[in-house]
């Protein structure tokens, strides 16, 4: 029987490339996104490439009251989840108050609320993996992305809590921490040789799903890099340019 996954924020490039890897292995997928045209484009490409069914589900992360309904619909389509992936994010480099609020809502509040719902659904079927795209930005708050980093730090904390809560019920909560990836979300920011491609990041996520770690850095060397960054004194961190 084919494995089944639901992907929230499925039109993001990292999610799309992850979906391609899963589809190539024969997974059945429900893709959730808010832009009908973009969602169709992602789904029809996956249908051409793979043989397992790919479902589209229209839904907006910003509408918190609609989340339970979305999870229900996805569950009805698939019957069970082997994997639930939350892959949405919002990033403003120098945000105003409204943009801070939007980042907080999308990166943290809505993601946590959805993670709670999905975690419960997985616990009820006694197993499965809940994977959430966070960021290394939450590890060390740096001037380049203070506000984005703090929303991701809050998300990380909520996921730690959820992990403790769900571990006894057989659910694995996986926090995925990419560095900078070449996507529309970071289009305003300079790229360097350290900028990863969505395809490479998706491959890292796919490997992480098979592994046993709770918190995975993609690429893996970021774990060591941020371990060192955390040890830096704050006068130095506050001068970091990246």
């Amino acid at each position, binding site marked *: 029987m084919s494995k089944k996954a639901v992907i929230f924020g499925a039109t993001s*490039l990292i999610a799309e490339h992850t979906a391609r890897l899963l589809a190539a292995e024969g997974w059945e997928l429900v893709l959730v996104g808010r832009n009908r*045209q*973009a969602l169709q*484009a*992602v789904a*029809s*490409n996956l249908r*051409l*490439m793979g043989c397992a069914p790919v479902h589209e589900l229209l839904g907006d992360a910003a509408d918190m009251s609609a989340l339970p309904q979305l999870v229900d619909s996805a569950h009805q389509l698939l019957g069970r989840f082997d994997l639930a992936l939350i892959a949405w994010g919002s990033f*403003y*480099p*120098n945000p105003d108050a409204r943009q801070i609020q939007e980042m907080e809502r999308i990166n943290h509040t809505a993601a946590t609320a959805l993670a709670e719902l999905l975690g419960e659904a997985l616990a009820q079927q006694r197993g499965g993996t809940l994977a959430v795209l966070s960021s290394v930005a939450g590890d060390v708050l740096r001037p380049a992305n203070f506000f984005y980093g703090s929303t991701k730090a809050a998300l990380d904390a909520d996921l730690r809590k959820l992990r403790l809560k769900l571990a006894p019920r057989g659910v694995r909560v996986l926090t995925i921490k990419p560095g900078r990836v*070449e*996507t*529309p979300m970071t*289009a*305003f*920011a*300079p*790229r360097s040789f350290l900028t990863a*491609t*969505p395809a490479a990041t998706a491959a890292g996520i796919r490997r992480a799903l098979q592994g046993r770690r709770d918190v995975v850095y993609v690429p893996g060397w970021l774990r060591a890099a941020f371990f060192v960054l955390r040890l830096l004194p704050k006068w130095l961190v506050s001068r970091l340019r990246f």
Partner: protein
Amino acid sequence: MPAPPLRQTELVRPWNGWPAVPQKTLRVWRSADPLPEPLTGETFLPFGLGRSLSDVCLNPDGILLRTPAMDRFLAFDETRGSIRCEAGVTLRQLLEFLTPRGWFLPTTPGTSQVTVGGAIANDVHGKDHHCNGSFGCHVTRLELLRSDGRRIECSPDAQSELFRATIGGLGLTGLITWAEFRLKRMPSPFLDVESVRFDSLEDWRRVAQEDSAWEYTVAWLDGTRAPFPGIHIRGNFAASAPTGYRMRRDAAVTVPCYAPGWLLRPSFISAFNRLKLLGQPAMVKKNRQDFQSFFYPLDRIGNWNRLYGRRGYLQYQFVASHERALGLLRRVLETAIASRQPAYLVVLKTLGPSTSAGLLSFPMPGLTAAIDFPNLGKPTLDLFSRFDEMVRTAKGRLYPAKDPRMSAAMFRDGYPAWREFSRHVDPAFSSGFWRRAAGNTP
């Protein structure tokens, strides 16, 4: 409102490594997205994987449009053998999709690391040109995104003028967002290959006369010594063979850094060429190869262009009629030897009678030779200028995708349709090549 995209400046080189240009880039993420807003006087040029060997893929002082996420398949007709995909899809991606389903590219260049958009914009050809023509011969439809915001669907029947300008149009007629093209049945992932040694260019002509039964042919020759011996390689897809072939990864080994200048010395190359010929003592060798080894041997080595060192290399590729081409090639190689800059790699290929619709398409009936030289700067450029005179006398022409220094006169002589073509160039699109070859004249 999302933050405005950054016009980041990166140093961009074509595959041959020269010229290196600090280049502003912008991304167009989706084929449904509009083009970015140009600043006053800014021009655009689409950039795929940068595999051309010239400034046709550069736009100094302008903007490169990169489309890393325009990589989706849109439709696949398995019965008629036709596919529609976004322009950023690579030939490698297509092969991974098509070959397990028994289909193959209608024709293919010597690397799979190019995009569909790039293959169309340079109207690339391959080992089967004498049978199947160039890539542009198989394109049935495409969509152009113009700087005035229009999306124009072009085909041989609709908007045919713009279609003809876009095939081989060097990315100047607008951004190709998607394309549809015919495919070729692939009976097996393996080819039956025959390699025939030849002792001289005349001998090659004799060998090549028996090519009619072979779909894919190409000749490699030792350009470091007259009378230019070499190996003629020809293959056909095997009628049937065991299936279940899994494609190997590209770039299994990667050249980690630029090789030092002394590594590729002429004496090394000469010795290498001799060894290669000694490696095939028999006059005729037959074997069976998978399609990756046959078509894309260099894709296995990542960044192989770094072997030429930081200054890179230059390729001189011309086409001339059957009657004149061999004489021309001999003069070119002898001139190179006489000026102590022997050719490192020479590839010879027969081009067939079927020409594509493209106004600036390179292939014409005759022979084409692609000759690689390490870039020594002025001495190499001077040598190429001497070649230019020979090519003009022989009524041949040069390949824009391979030539970062072609003069305006060479270009206009070789491509008399350039004036008609220039009427279809998008006013907001330009390239380094275009400004040099045709730009500042009415």
